[in-house]
């Protein structure tokens, strides 16, 4: 009995429940036609949201005011630079990925530099660095769409029994990050800083180093997402990261992570990413006008967050 009540108190449960409800509603509308395919497509696109959301979640967990707004620009720059350097050559896939990671590391260091050395609040620091990064991407390639290597394109679009391979890989990464968050000194330190940065510092935790690592890690996740997304959609585009800024925050929050920091969970990211995609698909399938669609999207997200948030506060 206790196990069941604990299960129902999991903050990520609502995201999954909402995703399943929306999926059933879509399937009911089409009398079951294509329900399996919709789910397969949802996993394909949710994967990209989850990759960036993992990084964003760790940053948000660091506590009030911590958020990375440079994610879209980092995705664009990493995608652009790696695609151009790989130039469609299959043997360049690994070096190309390492270059994308290097872009992420540089961006992360730049962000932390602005936050720590110049003492700029993270929200402003990452916003201004995103302008610099986006300009670098424009300057580097002026929006030129270089085709990805064929093997990379095949890998990012491959499926086993309807399940995208990339999604399976990211589920595995999410599982690893779940352990990192809950079972390692690094992960526990991130949570401790989010709950009370002063207490964490007085307890002798390496607050600055952990912050540094977290921002760099977030940028590396964003860069990796830009790399696979460019491979998936036939090349990098200047506006490829645009919708990932708000989406990354939305996925984190709907997934049951506290915006105030200190409480977070990884499974919810998958639930929330699937939910967001299925929600848009459902409203598209219903054939509602754009205004109604946006209105409903907003209302449903508010409803889910309220439900999830309500259960959390009663828990404490």
């Amino acid at each position, binding site marked *: 009995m206790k196990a069941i009540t604990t299960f129902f108190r999991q903050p990520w449960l609502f995201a999954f429940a909402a995703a399943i409800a929306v999926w059933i509603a879509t399937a009911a509308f089409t009398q079951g036609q294509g329900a399996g395919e*919709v789910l397969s497509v949802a996993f394909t696109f949710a994967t990209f949201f989850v990759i960036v959301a993992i990084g964003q979640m760790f940053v948000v967990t660091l506590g009030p005011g911590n958020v990375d707004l440079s994610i879209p620009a980092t995705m664009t720059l990493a995608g652009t630079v790696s695609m151009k350097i790989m130039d469609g050559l299959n043997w360049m896939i690994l070096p190309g990925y390492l270059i994308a990671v290097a872009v992420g590391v540089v961006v992360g260091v730049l962000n932390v530099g602005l936050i720590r050395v110049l003492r700029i609040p993270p929200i402003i620091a990452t916003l201004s660095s995103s302008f610099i990064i986006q300009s670098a991407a*424009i300057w580097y390639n002026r*929006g030129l769409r270089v085709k990805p290597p064929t093997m990379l394109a095949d890998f990012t679009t491959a499926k086993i029994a309807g399940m995208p391979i990339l999604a399976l890989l990211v589920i595995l990464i999410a599982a690893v990050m779940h352990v990192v968050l809950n079972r390692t000194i690094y992960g526990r330190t991130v949570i401790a800083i989010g709950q009370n940065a002063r207490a964490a510092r007085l307890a002798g935790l390496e607050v600055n180093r952990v912050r540094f690592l977290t921002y760099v890690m977030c940028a590396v996740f964003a860069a990796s997402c830009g790399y696979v997304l460019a491979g998936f*959609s036939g090349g990098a585009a200047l506006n490829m990261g645009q919708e990932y800024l708000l989406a990354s925050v939305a996925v984190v929050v709907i997934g049951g992570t506290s915006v105030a920091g200190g409480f977070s969970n990884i499974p919810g990211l998958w639930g929330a990413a699937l939910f967001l995609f299925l929600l848009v*698909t459902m409203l*598209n399938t219903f054939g509602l006008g*754009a205004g109604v669609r946006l209105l409903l999207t907003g209302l449903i997200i508010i409803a889910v967050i309220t439900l999830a948030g309500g259960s959390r506060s009663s828990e404490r």
Partner: protein
Amino acid sequence: MTPRITALSLALLAATAMTPAQADTSDKRIALSNNYAGNSWRQAMLQSWEKVAEEAVGEGVVAEADAFTTAENQVTEQAAQIQNLILQGYDAIVLNAASPEGLNGAVREACDAGVTVVSFDGIVTEPCAWRIAVDFKQMGKDEVSFLAEQLPEGGSLLEIRGLAGVFVDDEISAGIHEGVSEHPDFKIVGSVHGDWAQDVAQKAVAGILPSLPEINGVVTQGGDGYGAAQAFRAAGRDMPIIVMGNRHDELTWWKEQKDANGYVTMSVSIAPGVSTLAFWVAQQILDGADVPKDLTVPFLRIDQDNLEDGLANTEEGGVANIEYSLDDAKEVISAAQ
């Protein structure tokens, strides 16, 4: 700059730039106020402006023709930018506006200060400004009449729209729906918003496709055709006729399909070089020409037989483009009179 140096440099400019035909505008300064630069269309638009403006300045047609782009695509930011341009004493502001109504206050201020305002693409409704508008409705209708030629028996259409709530999106869509009502054999069975971005369109189409019957044609708004094609391919569906929007990736994909299996479609959009049309119109107004307030931009349409030429005139990663000349501008002006 002190007034004396300004006067001196103006005198110098006037002395060096004595090209007889356009002598009247040789001391005029034109600014481009642009609200967004983050996609390939806007990049090409700025490049075309740069190219034509540089030539015009070099030949002494105008004294200056600088481009300014706001960082955040915000109405307030562009309004502040316009106020700055007024203070800097430009004679004309060529404007691609973030909002049709939101900038009217700033545009009014510019007019009151004696500045000529020419809006294009993203036009403003303030009556004192000139408007070089695109007949987006006609563009939507053209798409459907092309599909009617190709599919005389009609069929199911998927509509990919642009960015919700934007004027252009409403207009193209209205044209498409008007076209469909003229050709009742067609039925729009699904509609998604692709935000004029291949990745967004791909995602939206992939999501709705499983619930749709066989699709015969896809009506688009440009920047979304390649993404739609990717989604159809990934779903293992028969490739419908996807109307393209002159983007390099779209034309390249079309060329590949044409060579491989004789795929037929058409492509239509506005050339980013329309900024240069606006430049020449502004120059003509400053020159004292009688220019009607409402002008129409010509479409740039690519068909099966001129695909290769169209592709050759499209910069890699850009949009099929042409730069307009002074004569083109005069033609557009006389067509409106």
